[in-house]
């Protein structure tokens, strides 16, 4: 097996392992806020590792560039999605909130 093949295999193991660990983390956490943390490794480390493996195999052909593009899209969109979901969870639990005109912002205790 060539050194490149070994490197591709190692990157795939990292990508798949991180994703599976994140899925188990989503399952075992208690509430939505805790669960949301586990979408981060699955959308940063895993796609970059898999895209790097594909680029190593294909160099920067159409396949390699599209794989990098998918990793980039996941990297950019997931924080937005996580924020929106956490906000929805908070609004459902505590009601809509907004700072009124002239209002003092106090501590954020429920």
């Amino acid at each position: 097996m060539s050194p490149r093949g070994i490197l591709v295999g190692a990157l795939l193991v990292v990508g798949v392992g991180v994703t599976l660990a994140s899925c188990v983390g989503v399952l075992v956490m208690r509430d939505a806020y805790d669960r949301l943390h586990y979408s981060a490794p699955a959308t940063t480390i895993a796609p970059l590792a898999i895209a790097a493996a594909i680029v190593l195999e294909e160099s920067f052909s159409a396949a390699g560039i599209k794989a990098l593009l998918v990793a980039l899209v996941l990297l950019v969109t997931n924080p937005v999605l996580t924020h929106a979901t956490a906000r929805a969870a908070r609004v459902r639990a505590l009601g809509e909130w907004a700072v009124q005109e002239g209002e003092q912002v106090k501590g954020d205790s429920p």
Partner: protein
Amino acid sequence: MTEGFGEPRGGAPMNEWLVAALALLVGLVPCGMVCLRGDPVNRLVGLEMAGTVDTLVLLLLAQAYDRAIYFDLALALALLSFAGGMVFARFLERWI
């Protein structure tokens, strides 16, 4: 490589990309279990996670079958699962 889904690259029945894609499919089981219980926001988190895992599976399958055009599928799923998650989050926040 002329009809159907084509063959996996190298002509062998399995390669490392197919093995990785199959291993990732196991990750859908915990996501599905999260989707089946708890309140709607917890289920939404399970759905978003499943969308991410699906995107990575499509990425690996595109490479396994050696068709550059299949990568567009992973790209479309990444964008659409983001849009779907945003719509769900907005609806859960206001109306449901």
